Every structure is written in C-alpha cells, then in structure tokens.
C-alpha cells in the first residue's frame, strides 16, 4: 500500500521538481546499518538540494512568478 502511495506522490511531485524530496525505504529494526546509510544519504541529498523552494512562493512570490511568463 505504502509503496503505491509514495511512488504516486513522487511522480506527482515530479511536476514541481520536488520528487527527490520524498524517499521510501524498508528497513527492519535489525538493520541499523541500513537505517544509518539511508538516513545519512537522504539527509545529505536534502541538504544538497537546498531549502524547500515552496515557502519562497508564499513569502517573496514575485520574482519566482516573473519566471512563469512565456
């Protein structure tokens, strides 16, 4: 169930270039090493992606919006 929803969400967020900010991994409670690897990799990934771009549209929208012109 979860994978269906998450994959769907990732695809949908792809419209906004945000798909990489959602990640799903199955890690059992015995897989501490894997947990560390996944969380570290994802944290680094998010850091390198930079801050969530969405608040900018709320707080300082006009520059971003100007870019929406054809």
């Amino acid at each position, binding site marked *: 169930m979860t994978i269906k929803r998450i994959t769907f969400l990732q695809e949908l967020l792809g419209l906004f270039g945000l798909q990489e900010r959602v990640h799903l991994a199955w890690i059992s409670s015995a897989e501490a090493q894997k947990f560390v690897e996944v969380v570290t990799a994802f944290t680094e990934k998010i850091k*390198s992606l930079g801050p969530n771009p969405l608040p900018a*549209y709320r707080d300082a929208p006009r520059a971003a919006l100007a870019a929406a012109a054809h």
Partner: protein
Amino acid sequence: MKEQIKSWLEQGTVDVFLGYREVDHHPIPWCFTQEAIEEVDDLVVSPARYSLEKIATHMAAEDPDIRIGMLARDCNNRALNVLYVWNQLRPEQVVTVEANCCPSPLKEHADCSYLEPGTVGAYKKAVGIDNHLRLEAVEAYGPEEGRNRWMYEFQKCIKCYGCRNICPVCFCRECSLDHDDLVGTGPLLPDIPIFHLVRAVHMAGRCIDCGLCEDACPMDIPLRLLYQKVNRIAMDLFDYRTGTSGDQPPFSILGDRVTLEPKPIQPVTGAEA
C-alpha cells in the same frame, strides 16, 4: 428520444430523468418526472454539460431504491462507472440515453469538442500554463520552470471550491479540503500547493477527465492538466484507466500484486543546487 423518455417515465422504468431543459434560450439541468411529463417536450441536447450523475448520486443517497434515467455523454458514462466502483450508485438503478459526444471520426458530428486539445481555454496565456497545452508539454518543463508555472497558477486560487463542487466523482460527506489540519483556512492566498495537491491525490483513481473543474474554475487554473497527470500516473504505474471498467482503483486494493520497487536515492544532479 423524447418519446423514449416519456415512455420510461410513464411506465415507471425510471422514477426521474435527468437532462437539460431549455429556459429563456438557455439549457438548464433539469429533473423530468412523470408528474410534469410535458416538460420533456422542452428537453434539449446541446453542447452544454453538467455533472448530472452528481445529482443522481444525491438522489440515490436520499432514496436508495430510486431508478434514474440520465442523458449521458462519454464523460458522464465514465463518471457513472467510477460511481459504481465506489458504491455510490448501482448500475441496475441507472438507465442512460447516449448523447452525441466527444469528437470522434466515427461520429457524424460531435457536439462536444471541449476535451479536444487545442480548443480548451478562453485565450492564450502569456504567463503560467496555457490550458490548451498537452500534458506532455507540461511534463517537459524543467523542475524549476514547472514549479514556477504551477505555483503561478495555484496562487490565483480563490478557494471558491468550484472544482470540487462540480466534480461528478466527489462524493465524500465531509471534504478533506475542509479539514483545517490538512489545508490551512482563513487567508487568501490559500495554502499552496497543498490545497491543490490534496485534491489531486484524492482524484487518483477517480478523475474521469471531464474537464468540468477547469470549466468551473474562475481563475482558469489548468486543473484538467493536473488531474490528467494523476491519471497518467495511475495508468503508467498500475495500468489503471479510471472510469473505463468496474475494476477497483489501485489504492483500494491490498498491495499483494504490486511489483513496484522503492526508488533509490539519486545522486544530486546539480541542476537545483
């Protein structure tokens, strides 16, 4: 057609017939009954569209045994299929009269060209996402451009709920969009893109691409493109074509048949950084 409908009403094949009646030269959604059977003479078939099945759903909720006749285009039929799948109407309680419809080379003439790409939208937009674009063109925007354009469109939203209210397959008694824990309430601008994404997610496995939402949107937000994307995902991931069959939507069946794999964390491309 009028004779057919009259005989259905007279013989009690249906309790009501939902169609359009001409009033002051305007086609108005109308509920024809045996009591006022002469109104059937004013029944019109025109390009006008309305989610008649939504009225049918309301009627069935009030009276589960009611038998409903309905003027149906392709989109109405797709909506009916979805409503059957979701147990909101029973196929045996609905009888339809097929109306001339979506453009097809097989038809002598088609009354509704609304859904044909290139004919949608009142004007060509100089900003945002033009309503008549094909989904592929919208998908082709880069991440930042796509985001800018969609956010531009979403920011126009005035939270009128027209998209939801007209939607033939929205049937919840209380709408998630009204839950202020999910979608913030109070100010305009509404919560973007949450408001639109919550609705988009709820459209998964439900949207039948009738385009009425976009028709209703006072701000010309290209909602149909957004929900087409939702449909495209359902089709690509789950081979599910909403409204075309009696199959359960992918999210309402247990996941034992899923062959999806979690996506790996991709190395950063640098495009965003």
